[in-house]
């Protein structure tokens, strides 16, 4: 615009001041203004109907050193209890299972989905990340993390590099991570596809223990994960930006769930035996993630889509959106919607047929079966004095496992072998 007269200068100034005023109302600044420490803390409860209950506490501290360095420390403590689906199918009669430790048994009622109620764990995770602005165009970061739970130890390192172009409108990022995990299941790792043994079938404890030991491998096992991610962030215009990521993840080592089993059924659908599952020891995953985020006059909105595929044949599509609306400069409400759909792993099967050859790999874990899931969430945030912020979040999450096309013999047709899993997430967060 060319300013040719005093009048147009005046009107331009008026326009500019109007836009400044309107920004003051709409642009709610959430970061603290006067110090270089930032603390975010949250406590979350996750509860499934009749199944897993989890409580998680998370704390994140950020400390800036000058304009170019940023230290990020995070601690997560979580505790899990409750029951999870063992993979066995419901039956016309009650079923008795040997606990994963081999010590004791548990019984599941007629028609009930077998749940292993021994699920119990506490996990502590610590991580640290250092970010350094190297110069006007380059930023680098390095990090370490470790996580420990009763039967699992994970240690990892990660590093990343970012390069800005085009007046900082375009940012390319390349990052990588490597982790080494040690798996040491309760009762030892089951021998792949071996049959569960029962105390009642043996005369003495010694005989039973000897038979149980035959189904177990000595010592622990490891799993290595290598991740590489390439990302582009592009500013579209004054209000919108977008991000595109491509991720490649290679996992090798022990990926079997030592606590999951499969029922072996006859033509009437009656269970003849239970076998411990087995999964391949390598997996290569690709993912593409697209996100666009926009600043609205009275809020923020984002939309994302993720496509993921791997050589286990699990493909998934995830659509997600967050929409935040400011009721006032210090208060907002936010809606979260997510839809997820996945296709079963090639070795997934809801049960085994007795008489058929025992496959090398098989799992009845619904989490790698055909499934859709959705999340509906609401969050309310309130800005307090001194830049503090308090927020509450409540979400409903439902998984709908589906039959992957397996024909159900006999009595199995009477039961819901793919029951929905319904969960509530409640969270309180505080930042200062």
């Amino acid at each position: 615009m060319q300013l040719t007269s005093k009048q147009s200068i005046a009107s331009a100034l008026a326009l500019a001041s109007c836009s400044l005023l309107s920004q003051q109302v709409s642009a709610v600044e959430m970061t603290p203004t006067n110090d270089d420490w930032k603390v975010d803390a949250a406590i979350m409860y996750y509860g499934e109907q009749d199944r897993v209950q989890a409580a998680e506490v998370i704390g994140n501290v950020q400390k800036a050193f000058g304009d170019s360095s940023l230290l990020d420390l995070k601690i997560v403590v979580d505790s899990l209890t409750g029951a999870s689906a063992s993979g066995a199918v419901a039956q016309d009669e009650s079923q008795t299972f040997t606990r994963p430790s081999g010590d004791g048994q548990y019984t599941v009622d007629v028609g009930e989905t077998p749940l292993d109620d021994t699920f119990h764990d506490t996990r502590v995770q610590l991580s640290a990340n250092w970010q350094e602005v190297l110069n006007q165009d380059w930023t680098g970061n390095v990090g370490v993390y470790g996580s420990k739970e009763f039967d699992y130890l994970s240690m990892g390192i990660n590093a990343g590099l970012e390069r800005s172009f085009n007046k900082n409108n375009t940012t390319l990022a390349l990052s990588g991570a490597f982790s080494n995990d040690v798996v040491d299941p309760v009762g030892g790792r089951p021998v792949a596809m071996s049959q569960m043994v029962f105390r009642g079938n043996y005369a003495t404890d010694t005989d039973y223990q000897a038979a149980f030991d035959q189904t177990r491998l000595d010592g622990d096992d490891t799993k290595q994960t290598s991740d590489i991610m390439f990302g582009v962030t592009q500013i579209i215009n004054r209000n919108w930006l977008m991000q595109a990521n491509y991720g490649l993840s290679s996992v090798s080592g022990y990926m079997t769930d030592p606590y999951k089993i499969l029922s072996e059924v006859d033509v009437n659908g009656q269970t003849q035996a239970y076998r411990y599952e087995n999964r391949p020891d390598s997996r290569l995953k690709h993912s593409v993630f697209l996100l666009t985020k926009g600043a609205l006059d009275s809020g923020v909105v984002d939309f994302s889509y993720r496509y993921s595929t791997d050589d286990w044949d699990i493909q998934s599509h995830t659509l997600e959106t967050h929409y935040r609306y400011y009721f006032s400069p210090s208060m907002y409400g936010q809606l979260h919607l997510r839809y997820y759909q996945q296709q079963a792993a090639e070795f997934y099967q809801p049960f085994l047929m007795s008489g058929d050859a025992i496959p090398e790999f098989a799992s009845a874990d619904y989490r790698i079966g055909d499934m859709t899931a959705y999340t509906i969430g609401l969050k309310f945030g309130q800005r307090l004095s001194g830049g503090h912020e308090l927020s509450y979040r409540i979400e409903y999450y439902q998984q709908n496992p589906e039959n992957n096309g397996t024909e159900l013999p006999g009595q199995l047709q009477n039961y819901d072998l793919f029951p929905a899993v319904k969960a509530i997430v409640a969270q309180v967060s505080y930042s200062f």
Partner: protein
Amino acid sequence: MTKAFYKPLAKAAVALAIVNILAGCSSLGVQPWEKDQLARADMALNSEKLDLALDDHIYFSKEGTSGGRSLAGGGCGCN
């Protein structure tokens, strides 16, 4: 109408779309003084870092796929 009639039309449409996207790219972005809205804290890609971390952990342990937004990571025996 036949398929043969559609084919060149479709090709032209695709070519036009590509030209449009390329032309669009050249005007993508803003001047440094136009970044007011984008600089808002709630526009940062990690503005809800803890929520995203907690969500990732839930979905990681309950679904067959993980990661995408950032490095998949892991660090628990829940999947």
